[in-house]
């Protein structure tokens, strides 16, 4: 215990001395801090895209909501269901019923070309035809301005993310749907979920506009409880009239987000690693100069009887302090610049745009801090080892 206290006191003295002399090496220290801050800001910035996209997709999901599609379909876009099939699905056990009506919405999913506000280039914006039960199934959907569409009157409501991202989607404006003018009668939100990137209307009108007769692509179903899933699934998979795939909404959107979030996460990690290597060299340079600028002082302490390991720890601590300051600045900059920044990208499963906000989450800030610590550790390690191996007698005479 006494030995440890002694060691701790030595480390404290040398570290205090190191930290207090940082102003004498301000240029190199600031360079290292901002090098690390840049790396952390870029890393968090890139990963906040993936986080934001994932958050938007996951917010869309509800564990007691289930999507039924044609067996083998990866997304609604590649699925097709007949009217008869949607009726059989709606009659299955396990579905929530309100006033005797099943909470099931047979839906159609198509897209229209609209210009992006930011670039003016056209992009696919999804239009979803929904049944009367759709609002009961997606309870997060709330009309913010205007009202709901009235079926059969060629009216649509627009998700607030789409309204912000694309031109011509304001309340009262006319939307060109396969050659016809449809009126925008409402703007809705869904707690930041995927639906906010969609335009909604009634399925029957949309079928007519796109000559889809009575075909659908999916049925959204609200279960009595998440536990009803197995009963519902068993009923459908054992019915010889059906050839369908049943997935929970949460799993469906998680799968849809996986490809893009994985891609962004991998790209972000590669960028962060490459930049991190550069930052390590920056930190190395700073710490080598930090050690060399106080060679005589370190040698003096060693001559007085201070051990080598407190010197190693103090150099490492100084490097970590610089790295953490850099990490904090980088995290702050990333939060200020990226958190909530709105963008739209293509959902490769549906080939339609998803509007989302970059999300600088606490987890990302922690990741950034950890990465800064890793950079600081490797940046300080070799200078620390070198400082502990110095020839004390020669170093005492250095100017």
């Amino acid at each position, binding site marked *: 215990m006494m030995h440890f206290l*002694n060691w701790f006191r030595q480390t404290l003295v040398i570290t205090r001395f190191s930290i207090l002399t940082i102003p004498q090496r301000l240029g190199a220290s600031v360079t290292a801090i901002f090098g690390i801050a840049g790396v952390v800001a870029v890393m968090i910035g890139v990963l906040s895209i993936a986080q934001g996209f994932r958050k938007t997709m996951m917010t869309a999901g509800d564990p007691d909501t289930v999507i039924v599609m044609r067996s083998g379909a990866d997304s609604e876009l590649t699925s097709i269901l007949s009217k008869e099939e949607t009726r059989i699905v709606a009659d299955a056990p396990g579905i929530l019923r309100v006033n005797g009506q099943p909470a099931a919405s047979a839906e159609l999913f198509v897209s229209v070309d609209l210009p992006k506000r930011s670039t003016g280039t056209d992009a696919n914006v999804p239009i979803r035809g929904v049944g009367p039960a759709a609002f009961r199934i997606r309870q997060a959907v709330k009309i913010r301005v205007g009202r709901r569409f009235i079926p059969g009157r060629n009216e649509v409501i627009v998700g607030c993310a789409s309204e912000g991202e694309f031109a011509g989607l304001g309340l009262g404006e006319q939307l060109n749907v396969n050659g016809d003018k449809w009126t925008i009668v409402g703007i809705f939100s869904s707690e930041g979920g995927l639906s906010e990137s969609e335009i909604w209307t009634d399925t029957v009108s949309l079928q007519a506009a796109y000559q889809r007769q009575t075909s659908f692509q999916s049925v959204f179903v609200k279960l009595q409880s998440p536990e009803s899933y197995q009963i519902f699934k068993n009923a459908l998979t054992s019915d010889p009239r059906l050839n369908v795939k049943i997935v929970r909404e949460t799993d469906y959107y998680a799968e849809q987000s996986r490809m893009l979030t994985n891609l962004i996460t991998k790209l972000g990690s590669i960028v962060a690693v490459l930049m991190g290597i550069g930052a390590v060299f920056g930190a190395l340079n700073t710490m080598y100069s930090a050690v060399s600028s106080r060679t005589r002082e370190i040698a003096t*302490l*060693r001559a*007085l*009887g201070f051990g080598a390991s407190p010197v190693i720890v103090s150099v490492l601590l100084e490097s970590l302090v610089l790295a953490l300051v850099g990490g904090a600045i980088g995290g702050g900059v990333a939060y200020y610049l990226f958190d909530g920044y709105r963008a739209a990208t293509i959902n490769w499963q549906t080939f339609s745009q998803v509007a989302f906000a970059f999300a600088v989450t606490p987890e990302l800030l922690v990741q950034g801090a950890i990465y800064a610590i890793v950079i600081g550790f490797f940046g300080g390690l070799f200078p620390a080892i070198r400082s502990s191996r110095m020839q004390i*007698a020669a170093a*005492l005479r250095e*100017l």
Partner: protein
Amino acid sequence: MSAAENGREVLVRVKGVGKVYRRGSEDIHVLRDLDLEVRAGDFLALMGPSGSGKSTLLNLLGGLDRPTEGILTVGGDSIADLTPRELAAWRARHIGFVFQLYNLLPTLTAIANVELPLLLTPLSKSERRSHSEAALKMVGLGHRLKHYPRQLSGGEQQRVGIARAIVADPTILLCDEPTGDLDRKSGDEILSLLQELNRAQGKTIIMVTHDPHASHRAGRTIYLNKGQISDTMPE
């Protein structure tokens, strides 16, 4: 052996010590077959031209380096047998260094600089403070406790260096050109201080110097020439 030396224990024993540095494929013999004894209470001046090996000998005596051959004991401890960690602890306990360029930590006040060796002891904070204050008073700097090195003259900085060297009551003071960076007046004051520490407190002092004037203040002078002890000052 003089009468004064009788009864005083041999503190430093150097027997057949050599030190060889390797530069590329060449061996450089800095010290050769050196014999020396220093008794407790001696004030010894080591003189010699540059490259004669006097600083190397001082480094060996202070446990900053190890001899290539021979036996070197200080207070009965054989330097060569100690591990690096033991050697650091040994230095803290037995050696007080006084450097030519004072080697004070610029970010610490005079009293905090003096306190440094005491951080390696079990003394409490208040004990460390009172010891440090006493050491600074002893070197005549009781009024400069909170001054930083940059606020002190060269002579005052060297006094702080001496206070730091004596604060933990080491066995030996090793002074490497203690007046080498000072003007004559300040140098004289430092030499008087060292003399007083030797006479009044019985401190054993080994001082490397180029200055004959400084060596005259020591009780005994030995000369080094090409790594060996010489009876007279080499030309």
